[in-house]
Every structure is written in C-alpha cells, then in structure tokens.
C-alpha cells in the first residue's frame, strides 16, 4: 500500500508537470547577479534553478515523465522477453532448453553498466536507447526465474494431463502455465522497474541516456554535480526523486512477494 501510494504520488507529480511551466525555459531571473543558480526556497522558484536558470520543480516533474516512460516500456519489454524465453525453455526442455538457457547465462554474466554504456554508444541516445539497453541487459534475470518456476509447473498434474491429451505446447504454455506465473511476473515487474529506474538514470548520468534539453533525473544529477559544494539542491533533488521511485517499486514488489512468499530483492538490485 505504501509503495502504491508513493508511486501514485510520483505519477501524479509527473502528470501535472505542465502546471509548473516548461522544463527548458531559461528564466531571466533564474540566475543570480553573481551568475549562480537560485537556491532551494527562492521566491519564484521554490526548488531553485539549475546552472543555466531553468526551474528545478518543472524539470523534476517533466523528468518524472521521462523516467516513468522508459521504466514502463523497458519493464514490459524485458519482462515479456524474459517470460517468453523462460517459459519456452522450461516447458519444451531438450534442445530449446539447452540453447535458451546457455544464451541466458551468457547475458547474465555480462557486466551491466559497462555493457550498457557500450550498447548505448552503438544504439544512440534517448529514451529508445535506454529501452533497448535495459531490455538487452535485464531480460535474462526474468528468464532464469521464470524457467525455474516453469520446470516446477510442468510436473503439475493439470499440465501433464493437458500434454497427455495432446494439447499443443503453445496452448499449454499460454493457458495453463502462464496464468500460474502471473504473481511471480508481477513481483518481477516491480523489482525490475526499480532496477530500470536506477540503470536508466545511471546511463543518463554517464551521458549515454537522454540528451539535453530533455529533463531526466539521472541527467540532472550529472548536470548538477559540479555545483554540489555550493548549490547541492541541483543534485539532491533529482537524487531524492530517483530514490523515491526505486523505493516505491521495491515496496510494491515486496508487498506482492509477501503474499506469495517470494524473495527476490537482493539478486534483482545487484546492478
């Protein structure tokens, strides 16, 4: 419930972003007479401004849109791909299992951040780049977990009965196996989303994600890091947003997991 409430608040914050003004407008009063950004709590810019005079509140809200956008898309694609691979390998066994699981293991052994940067340099920057990178890096986690659960489900009587009756494999996987994985997939989706937020922000922080002037929390942390000593709000504010979003997804995932006694958090957030 806490997680859902938090996520709801973040979504609402992103939805009402236009209320706070455009994210890339450079305000004439956004820079002090000494050429410095306005601090937190300034009269016309409650969360302050960044180093070129843009309103932080507006950029955080629009940044939330970008973050939630790539989180949702990347989550769906990585969970979807992972589920397809895991179910296929776990149900069909034989050569399919051998090949798919070996591929999965290769992807699991790839270091995430470095590979992400390398992929981003090839695929280009922006939300699409983040989606493709995250999908490529995270589907394997889902695949492995789903594979294990599918192995167990395959031995269940109703599945064996369906096989014995000659029901096509694809139908069994879709109608008998997948529904029983729904809770697991929900948990995986929540925890995966937390990781996606972090890795997406990390890629933007490293310059491989969203490009200016698009507002995105990770990129905002990068922009503000040089000002950390004298204008910490430029870093602290987007960082808090990232942390809250990750926390929301983790709480949701743990809440669902508690209902089904599945504990996956540690491995999931080992980025």
């Amino acid at each position: 419930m806490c997680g859902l409430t938090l996520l709801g608040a973040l979504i609402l914050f992103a939805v009402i972003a236009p209320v706070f003004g455009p994210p890339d407008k450079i305000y004439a009063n956004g820079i002090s007479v000494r050429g410095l950004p306005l601090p937190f709590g300034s009269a016309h810019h409650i969360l302050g401004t960044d180093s070129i005079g843009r309103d932080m509140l507006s950029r955080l809200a629009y940044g939330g849109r970008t973050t939630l956008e790539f989180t949702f898309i990347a989550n769906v694609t990585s969970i979807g791909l992972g589920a397809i691979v895991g179910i296929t390998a776990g149900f069909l066994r034989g050569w399919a299992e051998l090949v798919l699981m070996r591929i999965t293991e290769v992807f699991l052994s790839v270091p995430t951040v470095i590979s992400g940067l390398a992929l981003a340099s090839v695929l280009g920057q922006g939300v699409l780049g983040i989606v493709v990178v995250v999908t490529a890096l995270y589907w394997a986690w889902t695949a492995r977990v789903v594979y294990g659960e599918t192995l167990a489900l395959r031995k269940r009587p109703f599945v064996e009965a369906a096989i014995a009756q000659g029901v096509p494999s694809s139908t069994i996987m879709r109608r008998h196996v997948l529904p029983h994985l729904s809770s697991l997939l929900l948990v995986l989706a929540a925890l995966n989303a937390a990781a996606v937020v972090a890795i997406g922000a990390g890629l933007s922080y490293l310059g491989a994600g969203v490009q200016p002037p698009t507002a995105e929390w990770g990129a905002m942390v990068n922009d503000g890091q040089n000002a950390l000593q004298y204008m910490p709000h430029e870093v602290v504010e987007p960082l808090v947003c990232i942390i809250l979003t990750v926390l929301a997804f983790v709480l949701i995932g743990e809440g669902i997991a508690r209902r089904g006694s599945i504990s996956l958090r540690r491995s999931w957030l080992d980025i």
Partner: protein
Amino acid sequence: MELHEHFDREGSAGLTRRGLLRAAGLGAGALYLAGCGGTSQQLPSSSKQVKVAAGIPGPPATGGRQGGQIAIGWEAEGNSMDPVIGYNLTSWDALCNCITAPPLVFGAAGEGPYPNAAEQITASHNNSVYTVRFRSGVRFQHGRAVTAADYVYSWERVLDRKLASWASSYLYPIEGAEDVFKGKAKSIKGLKLVDPMTLRIQLTEPDLTFPNILAQPYMAAVPREVVERYGTNFPTHVVSTGPFMLTSYDTAAQTCTFAANRGYFWSGLPYLNKITYRWGASAQTELLQLEHGNIQSIGEGIGPSLVPQVSAEPSLQKYVVRIALPAVTWIGLNLKRQPFTDVRVRQALNYAVNRAQLGRVTYGTGVPWGLPFPKTLPEFPRTATPYDYDLERAKSLLRAAGAEKLSFTLTSTADDPNPSIAQVLQQQFRAVGVQMSIDTVSDNAYDTATTNKNFTAAPTHWYQVQPTALDILTSNYTTGASSNYWNYSDHQVDKLASEALRAPTTKQSNAYLAQAEELIKRDAPGLFLEAINFVDGRSPDLENFHYNVFYGTYYDRLWT
C-alpha cells in the same frame, strides 16, 4: 597554455593547435591561472633594494626584494622541458617564464615583440631579410657566453626530425629550413653569421610577422655541449638563458625545482630564489592547496567547473584575477551542409544569439563578442561592428531565405561550458523557429568529426599566440587553412591575408586585416559568441604580479 601555434601548416612534424590544446586537457573556455602567491616556506627576504638593469621589456621590474620561494600546482606533468619539444601547459609555463629567454619577447598585452636576448633586429628587402644582433653579456645558465652560432645550432635543432619538434614548421619561412627538416640539407641556407654576435636571416618571401617567431621559447639558445652530454636526458637537465634554471626533476615525487639564475642578463632579476612545480593534483585539490598556502598558484587555472564555486565563495575572491585574452569562441558552421549553405541563415542565427545571456552562464570566463577576431588586439583599427541581439532581423533574414522552420544538429563535447552554452543556444534559436538538437560526443569523436568535416555545427575556440589577427585568419578563414573545417573560402579574404603578410608595416597589415574581418563577419562562417577571459588565481601575498597573455606570469619580477 598552448599559445604557441602560429599557423597550422600541413605536413608539419608538429601538432595542430587542436592537438596541443587537447593534450593539455583544455576545452572551450579553458582558463589559465598563473598567479603566484606567497612562499609556503618563508625564507628570510633581503630588505636591500636591488638594482635592476634598465630597458627590461614588459611591466615594471624594479623595487623588489630578493629572496623567497613559491610553489605552483599543476594537474599534469610537463611533457618536456626541452624548448623544442615542450608544449603542454606545464612545459610552456616553465619554458617561457623560467628556462628560456628568446631573442625577442611580447609585451604583457601581446604588443611588440621587443628585444630580449637580441639587442636589435632590423628588417630589410621588404621584410624578407632580418638582421639580428644578439646582446653581449648573455650567458647560458652553466656560465658560457652565448654567441650567434648558438642560435644557428639551436634553430637547426628545431628542425631535427629525430626530435619531432611540433615547432619545426614555424621555421619554414627561413630559406633552406624546410630542406633541413626533410633531410635534404644539413644546415639552414638562409642563416648567415655576419659576426660572432650578428645573424642575417634570409626568408623565402617577405613576412612582416617573422619577428613573432623569434619571441617563442623554442627560438631560445641551448648549448650544444650540454645537449650532447645529456642526449635524451637533456629535458631533465635543460640549460638555456632564462631567469631560472632547472635544478631538480623528480617524476616519482611529481615535482621539479628551478633556482634563480644569478647570471641572468637582466641583472638584478629574478627576485625569487626558487620556484617549485608540483603536479598530479586535481583541480579541486589545487584550489584547497591554494587556500591553505601549500601552493601559491594553480598552474592551469581554476577549471571551468570550479569558477562558479569560486564566484560563490567570498573568501576565495582575493585569489581571483580575470584577464582578457586574445582568444575567441564560436560555433563553426559547415558551409557545405544544409541549412548553412545560405549566408542569410548564418547571419540570422548570429542575430538570434543573446550573447549577454550566454555570458551569465559562463561565469565571467567569456564576454559577449560578435566578431571573428579577438576583441583585444594591439593597434588594430577595427571597423566591423559586432553582431548584436536582434530577433526581428533574424526572423526577417530567415524569411528572406525561405527558411522559417529549420533544424540542425550541434556536435559538441561534454567539456564545460559547452553543455550549458549549447542548451542556452537551443532555447534562443527556438525563439526564431530553429530547432537545434545536441549531439554530445567524446573529445576524440569531436576531433574526428571536425577534422573530417563530418558535422553541421560544432563549438570551437582559438587562442592567439601572436599580436596579429593573421594568427586566427590564416589558420581558420583562408581557403584550405589547416583549421578551416568550415569549408569557408573567400578569395577577397585570401587576398587580404596575403597582403597583410607582405605589408611593410604593422599599421598597413592591420588595415588589411580589418577589412578581412568585415568580410568574414558578413559571410558569417560561424556564430561568433564570446571573447575569452582567463580566471587567474594567485596568493594575495605576491607583489608585483604581472601576467603576459601569451607566456603567463612574469616570475622574474615577482617578489614576496
């Protein structure tokens, strides 16, 4: 500061200005800090006033106290203390201000050059022959007297392919120099010893700017016997004629020291007994060291990312001095790519730039400047007026060009302050209906893109090393110039450049250059943004601090 590129020439064994700046880690808006502060270890200073020789070029040098020492912090080690090899910021500072004393030197604001180790230079035959009489009494730091033959040896050494000097091409104006570099001759044909202290220099063609080359550190004399004795170790045992001599070099400890040359030909100088260079610290650490008195100067300057911090802290203001440089920054436009094939579009964008707003996000490291040549040029009879901020005119030009909905990509690096400038420009151009996307790439990718002319627009900058606009003109704006990545070509500009080079006097040369600036402004091969300032930092304990826009701090006349 790599203020040592004259003309980027093709086929040089040396580096382009781009490569030198990149090697020193400098980007757009790089700052030079060369102040000196009080001594970290206070030695007793002599209270006796020193009698200083008359006629020293540059700022006032009298009235100081001998003694004391200073330490200067650097991020990077010098690439070499050999005058013909050293080029990065640390080396350049040491060579110009400690180790060498070239025949001529520029004034503090870039004027001149003036006699230094040379007593007199006379031009004849329409500036195609220069006769240099060297000053008697000039001695190498190990004691031997310098003669004109030492300069012949030293200049031939610049052309030694084994040394791969970046400066070799700058001697090509001397007849026979290129043949020596190519191995076709053993000695420079155009150098003739008139007497032991006089050298006659025959150029391949008239060149008014040749004396500027004699003001460079690689033109200082080095003793053959020391070079031959130390061989490849000469850089760590360098001997020349400057006010300070290298006395120790410890790579492991990341430090080197210079002691006062008490035989310096400008008698009475230097005042300081010792200068220590310490390298390897980050910019932030150097700032802390400066605050705590561990160093008296940050060699490369306060990095662009630290300037806002310095601006924000009143306690740091006492260390800061801003100095206008003969340097500019602009956005280069590829004239062979849409939308910049139309001059009206280029002019329109120049009018769409609010340079005052840009200046606010660059923290005083640049001042608004809408012309191609540096703002500060000695004796320059400027006639062009800078582009100003005029939205209506910008829109009108775009309408006339039929280009009211444009888009293009700016290829930029992540070096400060490029990201800020790019985002500000992005919004400014939106006001005239132009969409600019930003492609942030690595330094290497940026170099490749611009060198191969595979870009549409890219930020760039130029730091002059001569007090004449020929420096920037012949490197960036003449047809086929080595840094002319913009595909800019105007035969009138080429003709004016040629005439400026051949002009009999500086006044006449500058008159041609002023005309060239008008034409380049009209053609707008770039979006001219700012004139660059240095944010210089030094300990307030220093006295008689002066700064030369080409060389750096005048250590010789500094005292504590």
